[in-house]
């Protein structure tokens, strides 16, 4: 953090100033409006596509028997997976004491929130009669029936709802001290009321901080196994179906790692764009891009292992149906999605072995984009290549996403982008107080080292 001149107390003020001035006097209003207009157009597309779906039913999609899980479910998994990286960066690295997370955790968590919302909408829209989604909740009703708790659909409901609630709470208590700082720097009456209400009256009492730290760290400690459970649960959705290609025991870790992989890619893209657009180069530094690149490479290589393990499983089992699915994947009608996933995920990724690539924003952004697309193809491939040819030749069929499915997908990106842009515009995007806490710790460490040196 040596970019801030002067002693540590001056640096505290500089960090606070830099971060809280973004929502109060936004530095890039034109770029923001252009992007926000684009996001709103996509959001409108979402409402149109969802409206058409509500009016005419899932018949407007390409879903059929045998491929009854189309884009809706593969996108659900993709969005949810992206969300997981935010929690991992924030919670896991907090517990590991990796202070560099402080420059990234806030927007990574916001990414989680909005990605989970997109993910949660998909299974609901896929229900056929989406307006009855509340039947998933157990409540006493005149039909005297209860949800089928042995069904993965009920698991989904609880997993996504829990994950969303925990992500919102974790993100919110993490941002409250910075909302207080923004409130204290707000100039206009409207800003003071807005940030004043959101800050909940936070005043930084030592007693409050103690309880806050206990709650924050405990939530972090609980959030890490939660992430693992949520994405393992999704892989069980597959494993619970007797479909060739879905029964490999590597699925839970393979899904969780793939999720982290795609999520780190999106975090890297957001980091590159935000640091450039908001002039945060002194907070989100080369070192952070470097570490994001390393994480991306590491989770990518672990995902590669998942690919190998899956193929090995099939070959080792010798099951004709499994072998058939493997053959469909590498040379069938959807081979483009298999090879697309392999190439987009793992080929450009190898450039990240070089530090010079990891620290240069544009190549990192492009590699991350390639991974995001590659992971999307992987989710699509896992679903469609398994479903379109299952046990009975008589029930083979093909699946092609319809116009309205693509429209909904584009719209869903608007559902992600529009609130995320509002977050960037109106809330502190980087955690100021945690960066200051790290500065204080570094200073104490330095003093201790100097004392040590003078004694020696």
């Amino acid at each position, binding site marked *: 953090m040596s970019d801030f001149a002067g002693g540590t*107390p001056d640096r505290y003020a500089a960090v606070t100033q830099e971060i809280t001035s973004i929502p109060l006097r936004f530095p890039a209003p034109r770029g923001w409006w252009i992007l926000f207009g684009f996001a709103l157009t996509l959001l409108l597309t979402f409402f149109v596509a969802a409206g058409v779906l509500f009016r005419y039913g899932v018949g407007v999609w390409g879903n059929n028997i045998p491929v009854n899980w189309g884009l809706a479910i593969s996108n659900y998994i993709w969005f949810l997976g992206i969300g997981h990286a935010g929690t991992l960066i924030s919670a896991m690295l907090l517990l590991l004491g990796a202070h560099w997370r402080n420059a990234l955790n806030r927007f990574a968590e916001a990414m989680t929130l909005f990605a989970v919302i997109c993910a949660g909408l998909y299974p609901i829209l896929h229900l056929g009669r989406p307006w009855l989604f509340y039947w998933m909740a157990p409540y006493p009703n005149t039909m005297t029936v209860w949800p089928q708790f042995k069904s993965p659909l009920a698991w989904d409901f609880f997993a996504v709802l829990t994950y969303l609630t925990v992500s919102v709470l974790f993100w919110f208590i993490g941002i409250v001290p910075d909302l207080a700082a923004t409130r204290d720097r707000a100039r206009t009456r409207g800003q003071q009321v807005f940030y004043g209400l959101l800050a*909940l009256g936070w*005043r930084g009492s*030592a007693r409050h*901080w103690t309880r806050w730290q206990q709650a924050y760290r*405990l*939530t972090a400690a609980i959030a890490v*196994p939660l992430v693992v459970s949520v994405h393992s649960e999704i892989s069980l959705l597959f494993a619970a179906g007797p479909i060739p290609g879905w029964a490999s025991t590597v699925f839970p870790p393979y899904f969780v790692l793939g999720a982290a992989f795609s999520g780190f890619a999106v975090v890297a893209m957001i980091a590159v764009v935000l640091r450039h657009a908001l002039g945060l180069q002194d907070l989100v530094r080369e070192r952070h891009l470097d570490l994001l690149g390393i994480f991306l490479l590491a989770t990518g290589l672990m995902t590669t292992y998942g690919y190998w393990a899956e193929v090995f499983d099939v070959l080792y089992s010798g099951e004709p149906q499994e072998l058939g699915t493997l053959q469909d994947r590498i040379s069938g009608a959807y081979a483009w999605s298999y090879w697309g996933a392999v190439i987009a995920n793992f080929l450009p990724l190898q450039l990240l072995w070089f530090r010079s690539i990891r620290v240069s924003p544009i190549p990192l952004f492009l590699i991350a984009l390639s991974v995001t697309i590659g992971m999307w193809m992987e989710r699509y491939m896992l679903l469609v290549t398994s479903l379109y040819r299952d046990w009975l030749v008589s029930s083979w069929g093909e699946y092609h996403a319809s116009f309205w499915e693509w429209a909904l997908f584009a719209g869903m990106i608007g559902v992600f982008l529009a609130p995320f842009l509002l977050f960037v515009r109106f809330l502190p995007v980087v955690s100021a107080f945690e960066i200051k806490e790290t500065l*204080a710790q570094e200073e104490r460490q330095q003093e201790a080292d100097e004392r040590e040196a003078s004694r020696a």
Partner: protein
Amino acid sequence: MREPSPHAPLFGLMAEFDQPERLVESIGRARDAGFLRMDAYSPFPVEGAAEALGFHENYVPWLTLAGGIFGAALGYGMQVYTNLAYPIDIGGRPLLAIPPFMLITFELMVLFAVLFAIVGMLDLNHLPRLHHPLFDVETFHLASSDKFFLVIFGDDPRFEEAETRRFLETLAPVRIDAVGHTEQPE
């Protein structure tokens, strides 16, 4: 610790410091001088500040544990109850199947542990709160930026405005402010 009621002559006296270490040191000296009721305010958690205040509280972890147990019991109990209330026999498989029940049990355990932790933390801190007497002090906005404050509450048994102010001066703060009570709206 309850904060001073409007019956105390003053909410307290506030000393401002520009280093976290100076704050921790001053808390210790105030306690040595016999003051009991005080609080410290800082832009980030200052290591040692709560210990210096003699504040050792573990309600939040226990609440989290209680929430986790409650959520797990609720999740498991709900699945057992509903399966008994509306039994569906699928090929003679067990009605109460433990492995598929574990997922929702785990999710609800997590959900309630986190809800208890965070709602409990806010409640113990008496938050949310729309206003606070400290916010009336002109320089207190720096408590979220780069300054560290020690407030000796007006209802401390040893509190006497002039004398307490003299004591705070011996701590060599940047400045000292009197914190009044917020006027109650009519």
